[in-house]
């Protein structure tokens, strides 16, 4: 019995120690909630008008429900000393974003203080939004945000997310070498018109030249008497020569070819211990 008492005491002691050890951890690290605590659009930096907000939120909700993946947009004023990626990851984790047990989702964050942006992805979002895919998306919508056309940029982000999720549902997410076709750059329109004008000019120019057939004769070659051309003296006298030299252009060392874009998504682990993918930058 005595032994059992000891055992109980040890167990108690250990539990106390454990509890003591665990308490600060639990207090410091917030719990990942089971339910999403915030709407899919959080405009803390107040970049959108109320009606824009309303419409965009509707859009995000319907896309998210449709694909069972949260598509969220967060604007803040400051990253509170964190990097954009850390902030986005934490925001995603501790506010319970993500659909289903795997917490599938994508969150786009912009912070106005130093004009940072970040995308964080989680769960199945990691497969859906690959690194190459995110690069493609940001190329399409980030310029609007840089130009302070926030509503346009966010809507574009939502549409692109929709497009990517649709493609992923087919089992073949967009990735390096397999991206949606970009819209044609604007200069192709004037270029095509210019080409048309140039070609049309040369064709009708040819048609116009076709109308002209009167030309003076340059020589009298037709009237050279047969075999009448005789050379009586023919000398090629070497006079002199000179040599010039030019320095060879120094060959510049060939630039290192970049690491090359690989497919898929690189991931990291956020402070809450969950695996995230994503990208970030300035706008």
């Amino acid at each position: 019995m005595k032994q059992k008492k000891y055992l109980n005491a040890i167990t108690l002691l250990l539990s106390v120690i454990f509890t003591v050890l665990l308490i600060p951890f639990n207090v410091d690290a917030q719990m990942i909630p089971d339910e999403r605590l915030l709407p899919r659009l959080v405009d803390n930096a107040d970049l959108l008008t109320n009606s824009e907000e309303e419409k965009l939120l509707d859009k995000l909700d319907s896309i998210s429900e449709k694909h069972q993946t949260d598509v969220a947009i967060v604007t803040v004023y400051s990253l509170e000393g964190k990097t954009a990626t850390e902030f986005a990851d934490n925001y995603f984790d501790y506010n319970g974003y993500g659909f289903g047990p795997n917490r599938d989702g994508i969150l786009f964050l912009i912070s106005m203080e130093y004009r940072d942006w970040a995308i964080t992805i989680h769960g199945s979002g990691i497969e859906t939004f690959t690194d190459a895919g995110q690069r493609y998306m940001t190329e399409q919508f980030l310029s609007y945000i840089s130009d302070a056309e926030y509503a346009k940029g966010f809507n574009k982000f939502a549409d692109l997310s929709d497009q990517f999720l649709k493609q992923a549902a087919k089992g073949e997410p967009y990735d390096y070498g397999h991206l949606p076709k970009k819209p044609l750059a604007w200069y192709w329109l004037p270029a095509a018109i210019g080409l048309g004008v140039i070609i049309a000019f040369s064709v009708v120019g040819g048609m116009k030249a076709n109308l002209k057939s009167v030309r003076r004769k340059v020589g009298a070659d037709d009237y050279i008497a047969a075999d009448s051309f005789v050379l009586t003296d023919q000398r090629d006298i070497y006079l002199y020569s000179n040599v010039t030299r030019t320095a060879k252009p120094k060959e510049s060392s060939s630039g290192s070819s970049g690491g090359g874009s690989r497919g898929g998504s690189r991931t990291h682990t956020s402070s809450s211990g969950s695996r995230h993918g994503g990208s970030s930058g300035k706008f």
Partner: protein
Amino acid sequence: MAQLLDFKCPSCGGAINFDSQIQKMKCPYCDTEFEMDAVKQYEEAIQNEHEQDDFTWNIKADSNWQEDELNNYAAYVCMSCGGQIVGDTTTSATSCPYCDNPVVIAGNIAGDMRPDYIIPFKLTKEQAKQGLRNHIKGKRLLPKQFKDENHIDKIRGMYVPFWLFDTKADANFRYKGTKTSTWSDSDYVYTKTSYYSILRSGNIAFNSVPVDASSKMPDDLMESIEPYNIAELTDFNAGFLAGYLADRYDVPADDCIERANHRVRQSTEDRFRSTVSGYKTVAQENSNIKLSDGKANYVLYPVWVLNTSWQGEQFTFAMNGQTGRFIGDLPLDRKAYWKWFGLIALIVAVLAYAAAWLFLR
């Protein structure tokens, strides 16, 4: 050796002298070295170049018209444009081949020069009309009126006076030629340029270089329907004129010579130049052409002619009556021009944009 001191450097023009150390001629200004023999030959060639070009011609005295020819043919003049033609007196109503207005008899042709030779018409009016149809076929920018058959029917056979010049040419040419070779080592690319003096002398003969002797007929048009086959040249007989018109000669041979000289010179230069090969660059430095045995004949060449005025402008078409070569500038239909331009530009622009859309995204 003493006179060699006067030699000029072929490279820079400075006086060159003999360098005893290298046993060569050397230019003290540009340091170029020359072989003694080359300098001598070059200097000799230049010494002989003081002669002037000589383009002199003997113009054959004309023969006189025969009695019956004078009775049957008359000179006509157009009261509208002043064009002068020769035709047989039996053709009562004749219209001017240039402006379509009626012509009147101006007098007999006794004072005119009688042609030495003639090339008779070989192609019929029907063939001339076909020639015109072929000429305008596929010309999309041609105004529609020009395809009108009534209009085509007005094509007319006319003998056009020409001077034919025969001559021999003696010529000397000097060219400067360069040859280059390049090689390189690790640091430099070397280019060696060698300079040559190229001498060509020889002779060449020309037969029957034609020059239009009618001021009314455009010279460029007449040159465009060349050449005529002079093997078919026959002695002139007024009988050949029956049923055709003949343009009246009004440009004397002396005034035509310049054009003949120009063409003879051009061909002579081209022919001699063609014997210089193997050089990277060739520049003619001197030429000297002397003509000899030059003579001129007065002949009639057969031409089918159609004159048309369109929007105040005169368009003349001509067909070589011997070979069938058809020439004539055609007017441009501005509307058709821009229509085609717009259509092509649109199609190409759409295709280019579509191609860019498909392949360049």
